[in-house]
């Protein structure tokens, strides 16, 4: 069984929702990445979403753009990211790791060589932001052949017809982008998200995560009522950015944020489904 499926099955048995923090690999420095990933797990993360730095992160807001730039100062390539995942895996065999990034660095490695290298490193899922299912069949096939889940986004603008297509193509979990905008925007519409999630549930057979714009414990708890997983990106990266010169302080900030979120998501009554 895939690590992602095992993770979601285990949480379901406990009636808990997954907390998925995002960080950009190599931000602020490659040496800080694996310790940060371990600290996030200790603070209550169920799955880690690891950003692959790209020079042109078109779907990201200023916080994650800056994280990419900090990582690229240290030449953190996709190959280097896979090495970091391998280091993490050496001591953590359970926590699923999902790569999130853009297509071009994968394209230049080649789909099959990338899928094989990612599987060897211990990657569980790959979310390619600028690769909708219409263009994804080749990469998805290479990933599935290597036992990696291709993860797809669903957005507020996604039509019902495409919702079905995406639900059919997606593996691991479906990632619902909870707002019209880039990562880190401030305008998450909880009511609209609730409505859309009901629609997605009607055709999805795998868990649904919600992300983009989840900034604090209150919103995380609210989203945990309607989704199977809550993804927190810019809020985590912000903790790292404001302490980029001091890895230990950055780690402490991230740990505090995730503990608060974990607690709010797990607190009594938090998980009673509204939908």
């Amino acid at each position, binding site marked *: 069984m895939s690590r992602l499926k095992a993770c979601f099955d285990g949480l379901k048995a406990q009636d808990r929702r997954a907390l998925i923090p995002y960080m950009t690999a190599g931000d602020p420095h490659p040496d800080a990445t694996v310790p940060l990933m371990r600290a996030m797990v200790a603070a209550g993360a169920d799955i880690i979403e690891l950003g692959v730095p790209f020079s042109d992160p078109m779907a990201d807001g*200023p916080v994650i753009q800056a994280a990419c730039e900090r990582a690229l100062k240290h030449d953190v390539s*996709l190959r280097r990211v896979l090495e970091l995942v391998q280091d993490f895996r050496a001591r953590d065999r359970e926590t699923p790791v999902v790569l999130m990034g853009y*297509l071009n660095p994968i*394209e*230049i490695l080649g789909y099959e060589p990338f899928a094989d290298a990612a599987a060897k490193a211990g990657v569980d899922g790959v979310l390619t932001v600028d690769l909708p299912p219409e263009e994804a069949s080749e990469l998805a096939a290479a990933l599935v052949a290597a036992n990696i889940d291709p993860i797809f986004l*669903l957005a507020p*603008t996604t039509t019902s017809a495409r919702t079905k297509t995406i639900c059919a193509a997606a593996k691991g979990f479906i990632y619902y*982008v909870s707002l019209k*905008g*880039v990562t880190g925007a401030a305008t998450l519409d909880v009511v609209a998200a609730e409505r859309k999630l009901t629609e997605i549930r009607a055709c999805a057979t795998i868990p649904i995560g919600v992300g983009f714009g989840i900034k604090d414990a209150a919103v995380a708890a609210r989203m945990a009522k309607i989704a199977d997983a809550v993804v927190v990106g810019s809020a985590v990266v912000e903790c790292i950015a404001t302490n980029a010169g001091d890895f230990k302080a950055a780690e402490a900030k991230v740990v505090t944020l995730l503990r608060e979120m974990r607690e709010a998501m797990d607190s009594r009554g938090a998980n009673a489904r509204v939908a």
Partner: protein
Amino acid sequence: MSTLAKTKAQAPAFDSLPDANGHFGPYGGRFVAETLMAPLEELRLAYEKFRDDPGFKAELDADLADYVGRPSPLYLASRWSQKLGGAQIFLKREDLNHTGAHKVNNTVGQALLAKRMGKTRIIAETGAGQHGVATATVAARLGFECVVYMGTDDIQRQAPNVFRMRLLGAKVVPVNSGSRTLKDALNEAMRDWVTNVDNTFYIIGTVAGPHPYPAMVRDFQAVIGREARAQCLQQTGHLPDALIACVGGGSNAMGLFYPFINDAEVALYGVEAAGQGLATGKHAASLCAGKAGVLHGNRTYLMQDPDGQILDTHSISAGLDYPGVGPEHAWLKDSGRARYVAVTDDEALASFHDLTRTEGIIPALESSHALAYAARLAKEMSSDRRIIVNLSGRGDKDIETVARHQGIEL
């Protein structure tokens, strides 16, 4: 039958692309975040509906005639041709359009489409500022709110165009991320669009971006080639032997080439910016020296490092300073229908001065790249041969750059 002949026979006709998914062979497509898939589909449907709508076509034609000033002349540069001592060089005078470049052909078309789609806000990216000015111009005329994204480095290099856009009522937003040039402005415009999809129309300024932009921008620019073809036949009784256009994203080149694409006897040359020389790495020649990849919503040739990160580019002409190129050019290159060459800053500058002095026409530095290649090619051809060069813009915007190059502060 040889394998090559077989492939050729099975290859799609040059004028039949893109396919339904926006692909030109392996290039093009739609590589965007999910949020933009629905608005792109809405745009495609609207474009396909209005493209063939008699009312839309009549309004577009009237705007092109009375507002842009079309048709633009096809002018035989006889003194320059004689001086070069070879083929006759004809200039397609896009520099005489309103706002001084070919860019306005496209912004007039897309703005009319925006109006039909009920959008109230226009956004655009710009490098040199020519597309930004052309967008701000049509937005002023139609009463749209207008926001133009521009890299902070370009804002410094192109101050007069920034002021021009502001005079026209546009908001110019500085983009401080990445390399602070055109590619980053395009990223930022995409981010705006994803945030404001409901009321906003994104006018992309070249034949790049996700489907349907490459095809739509080409179709709006194809008026250049349609006119040039008819004018050449009328003036000389023959088709030209060669067409030459500079290639940044590739819109003026596609616009000139497309109506000739099935005329196998007409050679097509796209001229990229070799900057300080292809060997120095300081250039913007993605077709001549790049590798296929995915950026800004389409698969095409890109300037990139071995890890797939996009590289900074260099050209003396801001309008050619882009690390990608429209996907149809990638396809025309691979299929052999068009040839792509590169011209250095110095060669372009030499032709800039040469044309100015012999014909009394100050060309844009972008267009000077096409002129420089024409000068090379003409010398190899006899005087009964004909070359059409797309004079894509006028050089008034570039006089500061040229002066600085000569050590003169204006």
